[in-house]
């Protein structure tokens, strides 16, 4: 939906329903589309903002073609590995529903499931930085069988009130029953989006 420059109304001007639909309904829809998932109020926290907190994941360019590689953390299937970042929301999220998902790609053609876990804690002044996560979500996702194919875990709703978030992405590889993907998983980042509806 295109955004139309808001009209300046003048005295005595006949107002029609089509003008109101353009000025009010369509412009609201255009602004909402800009804010909703996929719009300007989607925030990618890229892999480069994370640090390893568990196991020995490795950070570097991934992909099979040298000049097409992108930065990611490689987390292996042998043991639990996790990465952590601090992220500051650009607005007060109290009362706003957000959703978050992990963006990743498989390093092999194996089609097993990768067991991802996303943990978010909002930390306010005076609170301990290592407090327990406020929200934890686990997702199994099939690797798909195509090397380097971009994947997104099912978005999970987040309802946080604080602005500084500790975001941890974690591959639960020790859970061999669920984590059946046998290759490295490339962690590319976490996508956070506003949910307006």
């Amino acid at each position: 939906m295109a955004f139309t420059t808001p009209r300046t109304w003048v005295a005595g001007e006949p107002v029609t329903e089509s003008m109101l639909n353009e000025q009010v309904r369509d412009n609201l829809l255009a602004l909402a589309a800009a804010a909703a998932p996929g719009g300007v109020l989607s925030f990618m926290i890229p892999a480069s903002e994370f640090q390893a907190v568990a196991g020995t994941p490795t950070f570097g360019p991934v992909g099979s073609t040298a000049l097409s590689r992108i930065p990611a953390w490689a987390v292996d299937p042998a043991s639990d590995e996790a990465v952590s970042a601090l992220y500051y929301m650009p607005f007060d999220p109290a009362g706003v529903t957000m959703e978050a998902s992990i963006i990743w790609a498989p390093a092999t053609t194996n089609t097993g499931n990768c067991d991802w876990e996303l943990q978010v804690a909002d930390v306010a002044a005076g609170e301990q930085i290592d407090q327990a996560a406020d929200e934890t979500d686990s997702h199994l996702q099939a690797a798909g069988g195509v090397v380097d194919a971009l994947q997104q875990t099912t978005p999970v709703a987040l309802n946080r009130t604080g602005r500084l978030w500790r975001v941890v992405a974690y591959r639960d590889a020790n859970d061999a029953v669920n984590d059946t993907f046998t290759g490295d998983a490339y962690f590319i980042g976490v996508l956070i989006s506003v949910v307006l509806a």
Partner: protein
Amino acid sequence: MAWTSPSTFADLGDVRDPAFLNEMRDNLAALGAVRGDGQIFIPAWKFQVVSGTATLAVVGSAGAQTRAPAYICTDGAGAEFNTFHRMRGQPPNYNFDILWAPSSTNTGTARFDAAIFGLQLGDEIDGAGQFSTDTNTLSFAAPGVVDALQFRRPTWDTAVNPTPDSAVFAYDWLRISWVPTWLTYTGLVHFFGVLIGAE
């Protein structure tokens, strides 16, 4: 405030219908709630250590998955962190806060010196720039709680320099420098980053 898909105006009578107007109100409120307010967090990893000793790592003692990235300042003599930042737009006034946490229960006094240099194209990146603050110092007592997040704002020395609101933010390019040292505080300083906020 919940967002609903905006109704279509069928006729001009809808303009006088409170339900239409209140739906518009709620939708504007929903969009207004997610507008940015100009606060920007510059995390620790965007800084480089230019003097002293500090290590970029993860901190926290409650378990691996609760740790967060920070510089660990291991030298009581201080470490200096610099970053280069481009402001996006110039709201009239800004605040700067440093985010840190102590690694011990000691309640002694630590100190942060802050410096901000406003630069414009053609200025030397390592020069004094158009505006600089010298030792804008904040001394404070550590809270005595391990890993307790602290937001601390430097006290700008207006006798030496104008407040940063009045000068430095006329410039798009900023060199930001922080020097944590400790006076009587006896523990490591965990530096998480700097928060720039509109007043």
